[in-house]
């Protein structure tokens, strides 16, 4: 096992390359690595060590952020599998999903323009439930079936759900102020 800055995030944390991860193990590995690489541990050392420490700590933070969130973890796994998913640009989606998207958007916009916090909270809850379902689906697609194209599709759906969640959060925050 070599420890270089290029190794993948799962290897960095000594975790199996899977969608289902043990959060406690991830966190323990994250803390363990930071105890060694964090700039505060190297503040009294020569500049060369301090530069290295910053690079490593930056990498460890990026790895943790990527693996902690299920959506970014799934995206990362799809990319590691070599699937050209084009998450940022590829908007080719099933008509059924496009319909679903429209319905969600309309519901959120309606609640937003009515400044209806209860409706927004309700949508938030529905969104959470739906997200949970999709995450279950992802686990099957990635860990059991290795169905990477299907997984990529689910990731795109979840990315949409996440944007919608941000929109609802922003609307709720605006109502707060």
């Amino acid at each position, binding site marked *: 096992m070599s420890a270089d800055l290029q190794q993948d995030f799962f290897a960095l944390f000594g975790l199996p390359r899977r969608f289902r991860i043990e959060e406690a193990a991830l966190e323990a590995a994250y803390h363990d690595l930071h105890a*060694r690489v964090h*700039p505060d541990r190297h503040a009294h050392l020569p500049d*060369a060590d301090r530069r290295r420490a910053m690079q490593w700590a930056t990498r460890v933070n*990026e790895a943790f952020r990527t693996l902690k969130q299920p959506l970014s973890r799934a995206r990362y796994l799809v990319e590691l599998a070599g699937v050209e998913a084009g998450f940022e640009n590829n908007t080719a989606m099933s008509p059924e999903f496009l319909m679903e998207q429209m319905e969600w958007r309309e519901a959120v916009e309606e609640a937003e323009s009515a400044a209806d916090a209860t409706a927004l909270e309700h949508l938030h809850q529905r969104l959470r439930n739906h997200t949970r379902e999709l995450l279950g689906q992802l686990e099957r697609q990635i860990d059991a079936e290795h169905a990477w194209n299907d997984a990529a599709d689910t990731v795109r759906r979840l990315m949409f759900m996440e944007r919608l969640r941000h929109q609802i959060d922003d609307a709720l925050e605006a109502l707060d102020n």
Partner: protein
Amino acid sequence: MALLQIAEPGQSAEPHKHRLAAGIDLGTTNSIVATVRSGVTECLPDEQGRTLLPSVVRYRADGGVDVGHEAAAAAANDPRNTIVSVKRFMGRGLADITHHGSLPYEFVEGEGMVRIRTVQGVKSPVEVSSEILAALARRAEATLGGPLTGVVITVPAYFDDAQRQATKDAARLAGLNVLRLLNEPTAAAVAYGLDNASEGVYAVYDLGGGTFDISILKLSRGIFEVLATNGDSALGGDDFDHRLVEWACESAGVRPGSERDMRVLFDAARAAKEALTDTETASLRATLSSGDDLDVEVSRATFERITADLVRKTLAPVRKALRDADLSPEDVKGVVMVGGATRMPQIQRAVAEFFGRAPLNDLDPDRVVAIGAAIQANVLAGNRAEGDDWLLLDVIPLSLGIETMGGLVERIVPRNSTLPIARAQEFTTFKDGQTAMAIHVVQGERELVADCRSLARFELRGIPPMAAGAARIRVTFQVDADGLLSVSAQELSSGVEASIVVKPSYGLSDDEIAEMLRAGMEHAGEDMLARALREQIVEAERVIEATQHALWVDGGLLSPEERQTIDAAIAELQALCAGTDHRAIKAGIEHLTRATDGFAARRMDQSIRSALAGRNVNEIVP
């Protein structure tokens, strides 16, 4: 074969010397310096036994500078030249400063930061703050009996990049080596957490003289992990004083006629505010320059009524921080109160109501930040003792973004990301043969550039000329553990590093700081060259000591030839230090740093490998 060095258990075989370090709480109203001595953390008093140094600087007509109590005593008689609450001006333009019209200063809107005209010329907030830092450093050095290796300076968690940079520049002007800029609530959490061996989620509610911070932290097995932070860097105890002044003048039907009046009124308001913490009524008395005597009674109920919106204003950031941490108030195990302004009963009550539990007031809210900073400084200086294996993971308080078409912000680093963090972004040219481009970096949460704070304009130069859209320039935004941004850029197809010229929007340029340093030394009758030489020698000694320590611990990783190269670089640098050429010493330091680069990489590699080896190998899938 190298001989193994064996130390007695519990004893170090290394010739280790204790490095002098201090923590400085550079506050809006008061500042404090603290240090760890033989395992005990203490705030250092002045000769009269006072630990709090009023953050007041007076520039006298005779060329002298007073800092602290003497300056504060003269504030009413010499308000224009006596700078109070300078922290509010750090990294700020005139338009950012609330009630600047009622402050007794002659502001000068300079390039970037606001300045103040004094009898000793125009001063920037950075210079004023450096006087406070220098006074505290002198106190520490006199008490400890030697020069400080480094200091940790605390800043409000909600300070943006410009305010942090200004604080670091002030330390540089004061000739201090900054080990770390530490967020005030995090410093308090360290002091509290280590004191109580706490585990779980804690909130730190920090209302100082001029700033408000809320941080949510998770304490687990020696890791202090900030989950989210929020605040208002222009809200503090001063605003409560201001309300009292306005109310008193209105109810007595008087108007402050001079700058002196303003100072006298503020002092009276502060005294009344402090009295109301323990009594139901207090009087606010002042003699104005018109000869009018102001004498009004203020009840606690009135005070609470006229400041209720200020108290409420602190709760919005609390809600936002909890939301960002994905927690609700009942998930918080304890709320640590920090800052003198949290003594006000209405603050205590509001926090208790919000979190549904009594806040924690067992540490002195004025000193807890300096104590935490001193503990951190001690460890960062390399005095880590057995069992000192705790670690801080802090976050960036405000999102970083860049300006895109139409004055919109594209977010690059989201707020509450754990530091350090780097994000790379690719750009291309839009004209044939284009060799330069500008990137405008802003900080804040809004969508429009105009609503965010402009941090800096980075101009990339030296892009190889290509057809429009052919160049691929990767720009890396790195935020270090101090929360400070640096930017680097590379053209990917040619590998050419683009050079970067930074124009900070609210800071001082390197030239300005160099000029201030020069002027300061001239004023103190100090020789510029002598100081540069002294600084380089101190730095060289630090690097040599650190390298020798690394060799002592991990020398086995080197081949005899590699070892020889490093030893030679050390010997060369030692020889240079006996001379008087500060530039040659600087070059020698750089040479030694280059010579140890591979060694540093191997050391880090070994450390990470041993972290992985500690886990079950079967868990590691190829």
